């Protein structure tokens, strides 16, 4: 189970690191090399995003990665094949992040069965609130996969409890309003919000949106279980190529 993996890993490490890549960006070979570099640098779990033409919850960096991947011919089947290769090669949990239409067009049951088959452990579908996700949640439960939902600073305590009930593995908490990849002010308000998240769920907490430096990482330590770094790794690759990934990830965690 994803949750027990996170808990046992947390016994060795105070703050776990989850990273994110867009499959097929800039191409599938580089996706594979980025995963390899991240795993070697000590990443604890990873989100693999299947590109979609209308990624409404993503900011400019990931949006561009989605459309560039599609323009380069990324098909869903190819993403699934690469994901299978990744899960077979590396010994950390991998999750899918994508939008609901990718599941819906494929058939929700069939897609979830395929996820289980290729060794994906859970998924984050940002445009699928639990009210619309009955088929998805049932299929995920049948295959013992983790549906991960999102807490936001706008979520009421009552809403957080509902989302927690519908989730397993962990809860993805976003640090602020807005889309991925913009700056976040890591402040006392954020500390209060994370405390509210803690009180609403017994699941581990991952914190994302705007995490990009060792200082951010230090702030999150002890407040959340997992730090999520998304857009910033794409920026790092754009600036320095795949070779820049490993030093960046090591630097985040305070080692070199």
């Amino acid at each position, binding site marked *: 189970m994803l949750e027990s993996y996170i808990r046992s890993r947390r016994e060795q490490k105070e703050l776990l690191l989850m990273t994110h890549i867009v499959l097929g960006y800039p191409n599938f070979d580089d996706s594979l090399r980025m995963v390899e570099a991240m795993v070697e640098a000590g990443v604890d779990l990873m989100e693999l995003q299947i590109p979609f033409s209308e990624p409404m919850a993503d900011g400019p960096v990931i949006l561009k990665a989605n459309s560039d991947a599609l323009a380069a011919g990324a098909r869903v089947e190819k993403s699934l094949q690469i994901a299978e290769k990744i899960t077979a090669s590396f010994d950390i949990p991998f999750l899918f992040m994508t939008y609901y239409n*990718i599941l819906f*067009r494929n058939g929700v049951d069939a897609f979830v069965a395929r996820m289980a088959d290729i060794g994906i452990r859970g998924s984050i579908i940002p445009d699928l609130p639990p009210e619309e996700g009955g088929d998805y949640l049932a299929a995920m439960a049948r295959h013992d996969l983790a549906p991960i939902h999102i807490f936001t600073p706008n979520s009421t305590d009552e809403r957080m409890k509902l989302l927690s009930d519908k989730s397993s593995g962990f809860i993805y908490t976003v640090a602020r309003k807005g889309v991925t990849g913009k700056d976040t002010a890591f402040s006392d308000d954020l500390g209060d919000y994370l405390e509210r998240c803690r009180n609403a769920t017994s699941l581990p907490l991952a914190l994302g949106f705007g995490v990009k430096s060792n200082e951010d990482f230090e702030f999150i330590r002890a407040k959340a279980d997992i730090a999520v770094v998304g857009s910033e790794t794409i920026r790092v690759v754009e600036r320095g190529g795949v070779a820049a990934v490993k030093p960046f990830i090591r630097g985040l965690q305070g080692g070199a």
Partner: protein
Amino acid sequence: MQDRGYYDQFGGAFIPEILVPTFDELEQAYLEAKADPAFWQEYKALMSSYSGRPTPLTRADNLSSHFGGAQIYVKREDLNHTGAHKANNVMGQGLLTRRMGKTRVIAETGAGQHGVATATMAAKFGFDCTIYMGEVDVERQRPNVFWMERMGAEVIPVCDGSRILKDAINEAFRDWVTNMDNTHYVLGTACGPYPFPEMVSWFQSIIGTEAREQVLRETGKLPRRAYACVGGGSNAMGLFSGFFDDPEVELVGVEAGGRGKGIGEHASRLAYNDASVGVAQGYKTYFLQDDDGQMQETHSVSAGLDYVGVSPILSSLHESGRVRFEAATDQEVIDAMSLTVQREGLIPALESSHAFAQAFKEVGDLDPDDVIIINQSGRADKDIFTVADALKDPKWEEFIIAKAKEYQNA
């Protein structure tokens, strides 16, 4: 939310978690307004004094005798302030925005009509206003951008994706997930997550309510058929809703047939067989998409119909057979527009001309005692640049070249 807004299998609210409280608030404001007769009175009074409602129902004798079939009546939404039915929706949402205590509005726009209407409303209500418009559309619709900016709106060109209407919608959502506390998103058509399809249709129902009263008063009978063009579907929902309880009235939605069948050639989600059911931009409906669920390019001579999805309410009415969907090609549309201008002196927008084109194909088969209504959802004289291009008018081209030289020499 109390409801999820399903019309058979279509609709729903596939929204990011951050917007859940915003949609709760919007649904509540909408339901309260709907239950409050004073709200609709205020709305009607505003539309009367500001937008010239009720718009007339014009008898088109010359066209009727040209085709020799049914008597043709035209509902004149082109006479709204800003020149299209878009004003109906925008002013209604303006009143709701004020009720919710918000001070800023954002909107997407394709052709620019909805952007101009929203900027107008924002100027009148004193709201800050930001309009998202695909970069491609900004380039081809400069006159609309000019007016939006004059009215104080900030027009942001969207350079992501295919840089057209659907990308502007995504970008407006990205603004909204950041600024929802003081901002209302004035979605321009009967699409998107619940309650938008229903709420926009409600504001547009003023068209059908008026049209039904007018046609009965004028002719003593209900129309055999009512025609409206369908992009997102708001003007069609507006006209049709006046006749939903009259099964003898056939409702005909006319989509953009573009250059004919085949993905990328048109924007017909329902009349052709190129679309399939999917979920994007927050709702479930027929989309022009590939097997993977990626949205595809669309084409139409009219920017306002050039959209991948369609109102979930219309998808449901398509499946039930209550509304018949047809497509008119670019050439049919240009011909229908030219004929209407010449015979009646009416200037229907290229969008609205789709409804005229389909009606012209069929009207000769009806009896002279029959009546049909065509919704002229907007007027084309303000779109002179795009219309002159579509009509390939050589004298206009000469004029523009001469004008450009004047600026170059200035």
